[in-house]
Every structure is written in C-alpha cells, then in structure tokens.
C-alpha cells in the first residue's frame, strides 16, 4: 500500500515540475533559514551553560550612585574584593579576571593580542575550559605562568606540546607556559586566547578603583541570597563611615549563565545579547517555516481541481477517506524529505556567510546525534503541518460531484486567500521593519554628533610616556597630511570614566554630582573638532599648571552644555568658576557644545574633558584624508623608531563609532536578509497560485479573447484579485509594524521619525513584487492562442 502511495507521489512530483520545484524550493529555503536561526538561537540561549558548575557560578556586580542620581551597575569590581570574599564560608572558589590587551612574542614572532586575560589560580577549577596539557589546579598558581588556547599554541609554536616553554609578554616579562586549553566555545562570555596568572600583574589589592571582574563558585550547601547577605554586611563594615545617606554602594552576585542575556552590568567582557532580538529572530524563524508550509498547503489545495478526478475514482474503487488521507501525507512526506535534504545542504553552504553576518562561529555539528533529533523534529513538523490540511481537504471530496465533471473551482478559496494575506502581511511587516531599521542606522551614521570622527586614526598610547609622546607628536605633525595629534584616556565615542564633582563655586558645600570625565592631551578639542560655547582652548601654560607638584597643581576643566545646564548655569557664567573633581582642584576653562560620547540609545549626559598626563590609552591622529596609504606608512615608520618591538596597529575612529551599534547593524543585516527570504518564499507561493489560476481560467480567457479582449485587459483580470489581497495584507501589517518599530525606536534617545512614506513605500514594493510574480503567469495566459485553449476543453 505504502509503495503504491509513494509511487503515485513520485510520479506526481515528476509530472508537475513547476509545482514540485516551487514546493521544494520554498520549503527548503524555509528549512535552511530555520536551521541557521535555530543554531544561532541555540547558541544564544545556552550561553555559559556548559560549565559543570554553571548553577553555582556567579559574577559580582558593583552598584554605585550618588544621592538622587541614577545608580551605575558595573561588572568591574575593586581588586580588593576577592581577597576579602575568599574567606566567606559561602564561597568555594573565587577568581578575579583582568583583561589586558598586550603584545606576545616568541622568537621573532611578535603580535598584538586582544583576548588576553589574567586570572587567579582557581579559574580552571571553576570554569569548564578543558586543558589539553597542564593541571587545572596548578596552571595559574604562581606568578608569570600562562595558559594558551589550542589555536594560539599552534600559532606561536606550531604544536600544543609546549608546556615549559616561555613567551615574552608586553616586551618585558618572560612567562612560562603551564598549560594549553581547548579553544573556548562560541557560547561563553569569557572568550580567551591567553590566560596568565593574576599574580604576574603584581597589583595591589586596591579598593580605590574598580577594574577587575570577580567570579565565585558557591559552596555546595548555600545559596546566592546567603552570599548577598554577607556582601551587604561587608559593605557596612568596610564602608560604614564612607557611606552617606542616599548614596548607593553595593555588590550583587549575578548568575554566570544569565550574564549574556540578562545582565544589566556595564563593562562586561563582551557585549551581552539582546533578548528582544532573540525573540524577534525566533519569530522570524517560525514565520519562515510557516510561510513555506503555507505555500505547500495553498498549492496542494489549489490543485484540487486536478486531483479531484483521481480522488473520485479512488473512492469509487473503494478507498475510504483514511486511506486517501495517508496517500496525501505520503506525498507531503516525499516533498518535505526532498526539501529537508536540500535545506540542510543550503544551510551547510550558507553557514560561513551567516557566521560572518552574525559575528558567530557556529557549526552544524553533524557528528552528534542531537542534531539528527533536531532535524527529524523539523522534518516531522513540516510534513504534518504542511501536509495535514491539504490531506484532510482533498480526501474529503465527494466522488460523485467530481466524477460528474463538476470541477471544484472555488473550493478552499477563502482559506487559500487568507493564507496568502497572512504571508503577504508578514512580508510587508518585514519590509517596513527593514526600511525603518535602515533609516535609523543611516540617521545614526549621518547625524552630526558634535565631534568630527572622520579620518581620525587611533593608535595605542599604552607604551608611551609623556616625553616620548611629546616628541612622537612633534614628528607626526611634520608629516604632510597630518593635521592634529592628540591623546586621550579612552575612545572619544565611548567614554567610560565615572567621576564626581563637588566644591563648586556658588553651590552648597555638600553638593556633588556624578559625571563622566575623560583625561586628555592638550590638543584634544581641536583634534576632535569639538566646538566651544565659551572659554578658550588649552595653552601650554595650562598644561604646565597640570604638571606641577601636587600642592601647586591646578586643573582646567571643560564642561559640556548639559552639565552646565544641570548645574543651573549658562555657558558664560560657568566659565572661570572653581570646582573639584575627585580631589582635582581647578577652574572651568570653557563650555563645550554637546557631543555624543556614548551610544545614541542614551541621552547626552554631563561630561568633563580635562588635561591630565597620567596615562593615555589612545593616540589620535587627525589626517586630511588625502594619500591615506602614504600617510599611514609614514606614521608607521615613525612608530618603528619609538617602539621597534611593538607591532604597529591602527584603526579609524569610525570603526569605534560603528562598534557602538554593532548589534543594531547586525540586526539590520539579519532583518533585511531574512525579510528578503520571506518575501521570496511568499512570492514563490504566489507564483504557484497564479499559475494554477491562469490554468483554471484558460477557457474563460480563451472565450474573452475570442470576444475581443486585449492582452492587457486579460492580464489585469488575472492580476486584480491578487493585488487586492496584497492591499489587504498591507492594511493588516501596517499597524503591527508601526507599533513594533515605534517600540524599537523608543530604545534610542535620538531617532528618526516614522513616516507614512515608509509604509507607502513598503506597500509599493510589495505590490510591485506581487504584480511581477503574478503577471509572469497572466501574460503567458493572455498571449495564448484562444483557439488552442478552447479546443483542449
């Protein structure tokens, strides 16, 4: 019996090539996208769950905030926290993690390494990063010990058999290799190439700055809330006298597996995933598969006229509904099996491109049986979802009617139409989203952000002291094409430093305000093109003030408009006023026009720019943009004179800026890519339906043509119904899209507006695409010789 079903199914498939092609292509596209998205989402949802002790692992969050001001949550904790917590009975293991990009040298191989962490000895006991070589308990037990990832071991040594060898770190110290770890998986927030022992840093366990991550593993008989209680007590004991009323200061354990999607902390080791985007992608994945299944249903029921006779005959020969039902399920199974095989192949081929787009390193993992369970699940779902309705519908035909030649033209029409409307509503929805996201991204990139980030090269300032920097700057400025050179603590487009200002002239003595601040070099404002509303640029004399001995030192501050406004001053009145920022006393030298120093998701906050020559993370070189390559080569040769052992590396500030919107750009790309797939798959379905409608109406078209209808009017006749459906879907999709995009844009403090034009454009796109699809068939029908079509009837 099944052989018979299958035989008919195969022959049907071969006979209707267009129909089969549409079905298989559509379904396989849906399945391929579903597989890719499922892989991605699985990666997102399973972040850091692979650790054997995942449930007991916590990262300590640090919360602080001045009175009446928003609390800052950060993942960075004081280095002094861990030594204290170590003695808590709730803590089984504890490890600080301190990331520090540096240079690694082995022989004449010298490279900049960004994924370089320092960690305490317990690190490999706590986290399940298996070691190929070395003992997890001891690899980080003393100073100047280092563990490499497998890839790095091969990169530097060409082998993993390297325990006992040494690497030169940051051009100074020799570290001994004590272990090699398997490369960390894609789904961990603690990705590393190198892990060196924390003791190598020789840092003091300070409470005055917060630059370390603190991870703990809970003891087995305790809970996170017990730990929380102890942390609260700790703050009371340690900070008792320092904490004033209304000031927030506290430590909170955050579960490690939850960090990626749920952490509210700033400054994590890698940017967290956005759970909302994951929901959206889940919906997209489901929709894609659904739409492909809808194609299948629609095409199958549209063919009812054709299959009707066969059904009638089979029933007359004694088939009952159940038997016919299974026959049609067999056909669906065959088609979805072909689609499945094709879909897996497509997914495999597209996986590298997808990884590139999503910034992931996903693998299909055909080696483990899990994936086959998954694929089998997708296969069964598709088959039953796509196959059940047509099978029920077709097997329910009454034989007499079909055999009498009463063809079921209209049957199932309204359901079919609703399904087409649903498909196109989804398409229109995604067209609108793509357009809006695109225009917001364009807005972000083209909005004047108050500083000129174009053609600014960023070099690392880490290895320069003040004198070196001075002469380096002088030589750079002699290069043609270099306009300004300056330096700053961190990137001007994402400033992090948290400070507090107080002792403001004309304000009560206990008044203070949280503020972001950035230590800079003299020519910073000119280099970045930040304009002043009041005051003047820094002079050499100002710098001399800052370089004086402690007691004579005088600082010069630049506040932005927002800060001045918040203080209740104007640009003019603020200039010249005295203030103190974290022990730095000085005067306000000028007021800057507002500029964006963080993502446009947040409003512009108060910021202070001030010269201080302690440490510069970044050297900024403003170039004219002409002869770029030559200018960069020139800079490199000067760099070599200063730091021959440090590889020259640079990037453009635009990249830093775009990095702020990485997840938005990624969303944009993913959204537009999958929107296109959704639209294409929907169009495939429409193409199939149009083909069958045209075929069904062959006789009508023939008669109309004999009566004198023009080809144009026939095309219009055949296309009209479909266009109506697309218009209805536009009406349905628009409010949903409006709501969704409104919500999304609300996430940005600075955003474009939703225009009716966007919706009209989306509608126009949908109609044009639908029209093109449908007319392909209608034109064919319209141009057919009527004599032929009438004779065949």
């Amino acid at each position, binding site marked *: *019996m099944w052989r018979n079903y299958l035989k008919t199914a195969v*022959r049907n498939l071969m006979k209707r090539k267009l129909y089969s092609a549409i079905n298989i292509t559509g379904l396989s596209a849906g399945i391929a996208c579903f597989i890719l998205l499922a892989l991605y989402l699985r990666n997102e949802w399973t972040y850091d769950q692979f650790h054997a002790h995942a449930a007991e692992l916590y990262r300590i969050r640090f919360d602080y905030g001045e009175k009446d001001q928003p609390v800052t949550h950060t993942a960075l904790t004081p280095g002094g926290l861990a030594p204290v917590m170590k003695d808590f009975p709730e803590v089984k293991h504890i490890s600080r993690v301190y990331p520090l990009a540096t240079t690694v040298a082995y022989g004449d191989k010298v490279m900049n390494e960004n994924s370089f962490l320092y960690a305490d000895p317990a690190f490999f006991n706590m986290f399940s990063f298996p070691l190929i070589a070395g003992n997890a308990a001891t690899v980080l037990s003393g100073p100047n010990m280092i563990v490499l990832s497998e890839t790095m071991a091969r990169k530097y040594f060409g082998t993993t058999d390297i325990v006992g060898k040494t690497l030169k770190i940051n051009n100074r110290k020799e570290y001994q290799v004590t272990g090699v770890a398997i490369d960390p998986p894609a789904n961990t927030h603690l990705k590393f190439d190198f892990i060196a022992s924390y003791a190598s840093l020789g840092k003091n366990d300070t409470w005055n700055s917060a630059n370390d991550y603190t991870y703990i593993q809970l003891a087995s008989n305790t809970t996170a809330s017990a730990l929380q209680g102890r942390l609260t007590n700790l703050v009371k004991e340690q900070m008792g006298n320092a904490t004033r009323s209304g000031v927030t200061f506290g430590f909170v354990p955050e579960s490690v597996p939850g960090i990626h999607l749920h952490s509210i902390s700033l400054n994590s080791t890698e940017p967290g995933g956005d759970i909302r985007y994951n929901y959206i992608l889940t919906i997209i994945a489901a929709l894609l598969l659904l739409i492909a299944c809808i194609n299948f249903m629609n095409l199958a029921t549209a063919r009812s006229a054709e299959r009707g006779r*066969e059904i009638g*005959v089979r029933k007359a020969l*004694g088939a009952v509904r159940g*038997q016919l039902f299974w026959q049609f399920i067999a056909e669906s199974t065959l088609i979805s099996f072909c689609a499945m095989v094709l879909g897996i192949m497509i997914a495999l081929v597209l996986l590298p491109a997808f990884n590139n787009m999503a910034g992931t390193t996903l693998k299909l993992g055909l080696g483990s049986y899990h994936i086959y369970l998954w694929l089998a699940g997708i296969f069964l779902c598709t088959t039953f979802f796509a196959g059940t309705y047509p099978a029920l519908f077709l097997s329910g035909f009454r*034989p*007499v009617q079909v055999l009498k030649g009463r063809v079921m033209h209209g049957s199932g029409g309204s359901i079919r139409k609703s399904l087409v409307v649903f498909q196109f509503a989804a398409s229109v929805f995604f067209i609108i989203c793509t357009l809006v996201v695109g225009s917001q991204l364009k807005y972000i990139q083209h909005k004047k952000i108050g500083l000129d980030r174009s053609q600014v090269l960023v070099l690392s300032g880490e290895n320069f002291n003040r004198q070196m920097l001075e002469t380096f700057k002088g030589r750079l400025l002699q290069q043609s094409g270099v306009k300004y050179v300056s330096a700053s603590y961190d990137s001007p487009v994402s400033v992090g430093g948290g400070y507090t200002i107080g002792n403001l002239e004309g304000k009560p003595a206990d008044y203070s305000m949280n503020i972001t601040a950035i230590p800079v070099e003299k020519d910073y404002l000119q280099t970045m093109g930040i304009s002043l509303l009041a005051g003047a640029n820094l002079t050499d004399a100002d710098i001399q003030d800052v370089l004086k001995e402690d007691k004579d030192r005088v600082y010069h501050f630049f506040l932005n408009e927002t800060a001045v406004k918040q203080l209740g001053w104007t640009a003019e009145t603020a200039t010249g006023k005295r203030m103190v920022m974290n022990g730095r006393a000085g005067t306000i030298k000028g007021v800057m026009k507002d500029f964006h120093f963080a993502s446009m998701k947040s409003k512009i906050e108060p910021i202070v720019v001030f010269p201080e020559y302690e440490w510069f993370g970044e050297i900024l070189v403003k170039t004219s943009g002409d002869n770029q390559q030559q200018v960069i080569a020139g800079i490199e040769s000067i760099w070599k004179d200063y730091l021959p052992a440090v590889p020259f590396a640079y990037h453009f500030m635009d990249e830093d800026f775009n990095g702020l919107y990485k997840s938005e750009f990624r969303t944009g790309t993913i959204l537009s890519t999958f929107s296109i797939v959704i639209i294409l798959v929907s169009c495939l379905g429409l193409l199939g339906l149009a083909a069958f409608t045209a075929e069904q109406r062959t006789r009508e078209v023939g008669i109309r043509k004999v009566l004198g209808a023009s080809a144009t009017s026939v095309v219009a006749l055949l296309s009209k119904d479909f266009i109506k459906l697309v218009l209805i879907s536009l009406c349905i999709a628009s409010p949903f899209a409006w709501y969704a995009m409104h919500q999304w844009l609300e996430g940005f403090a600075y955003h474009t507006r939703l225009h009716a034009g966007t919706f009209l454009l989306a509608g126009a796109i949908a109609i044009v695409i639908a029209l093109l699809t449908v007319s392909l068939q209608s034109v064919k029908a319209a141009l057919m010789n009527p004599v032929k079509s009438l004779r065949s009837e």
Partner: protein
Amino acid sequence: MIQLQKISRHYPVGFGKNYILKDIDLTINEGEFVSIMGPSGSGKSTLLHILGLLEEPSEGQYLFEGERVDKMNEKKRTQLHRGSIGFVFQAYHLIDELTVYENIETPLLYKNIPASERKSRVADVLDRFNMVAKKDLFPNQLSGGQQQLVGIARAIVAEPRVILADEPTGNLHSDQAKVIMQLFKHLNEQDKITIVQVTHSDVNATYGNRVIQIRDGHIQP
C-alpha cells in the same frame, strides 16, 4: 438482489425542491443484464450512483440482498462497496499516474488483499483480456477502447457481484463499442455477474435482457 423502494433524490431550489428522481421502485435480480435508457438529465446517472453507493437517496429504501443499505454502518457499507460493486465509467477514469497493472491492482489494495494474491489475480485478468504486453504502459499510451478494457478489467478484478457501467461506450467508436458490449455479455453469461448499464444506444441495449426507460425522474412503465 437489489431492491429500490420509493427512492427519491432532490436538491433544494429556492424554497422548493427539484426532483431528479421521484418514487423509483425497482428490483434487479441476480444475473440480470439491465440497460437504463433515457434522455439527458432524466436521472439515469443519479440512479446508477445511488445503486453504487456513491450517492445517497433523499427518500426511500435501498435493499441489497434484503438488507437495508441506509441502516448499515460505515464499515459494512465500505465492505459492500469494495466487495460487491464494480464501476465502469464513460470517461474510463483511469489514474493517469499509474500503469495499466497498477490501475487494475488499486481496488485490491483498498480491499487489503495480500501481495501474492494481488499479483496472481491481476495476472489472471491481464491474461484474460490479452493485455499482458501492455501492463507497464500508462493510460495516455492506450487507445480509448483499450483504456475502457482496462477500466472493465479494473472493475472485475475484485470479483464483484454487480458491475455498474455509466455509458461505457459513450466515448468509443462503434467497432470498439461492439467489443466492449460483447465482453459485458460474456461476463454476464459466463461469470454470472449482474450488469447494470446506462446507455443512449438502442444497439447496446439489445445486449441486455431488460430495458428500463427513465424520463424526468420516473420509470416509464
């Protein structure tokens, strides 16, 4: 064998009813060869469909071997349908995707007959109809007469007691029609299969042993 009592078939038109068949009383005995004749739209085909359980009467009783068909449960009706009734259509209605062999085999599949028996029964029928050479051809590779032969072969393979034929020669030219009618006669006489055919042709009607004239839904006396 077959008894129709006061059988009517109607469908609603506006507030009234339009009768296709009205108060049909008919008895067909085992081994008869009955021809139903009448003009187009007189209700011949509907009568045949009711006899073949493809359509249900609106009123009246249908007894098959003394048992009321309308009282039977679904399973029993299906059994009756599969086991006792064979259909032959004017337009042959072979399944295009199946070969001659598979078309003939289909009713046996639905009867859940084991594969080995299916094979021998289909082989018998093919042999008897001299179609062994054509068994792997598809319907569109056969002439109309040959297709109808397959249609008949398919109808008798399940060894029915009654064959219901709806204008079996309507699409054939007279030579082919003659072959088909002789085959029916043979089946009726040698195999004792009861045959009910609908036909327009007086010539075809002469092959049978009884003619029923039907007009406007009534049997003419």
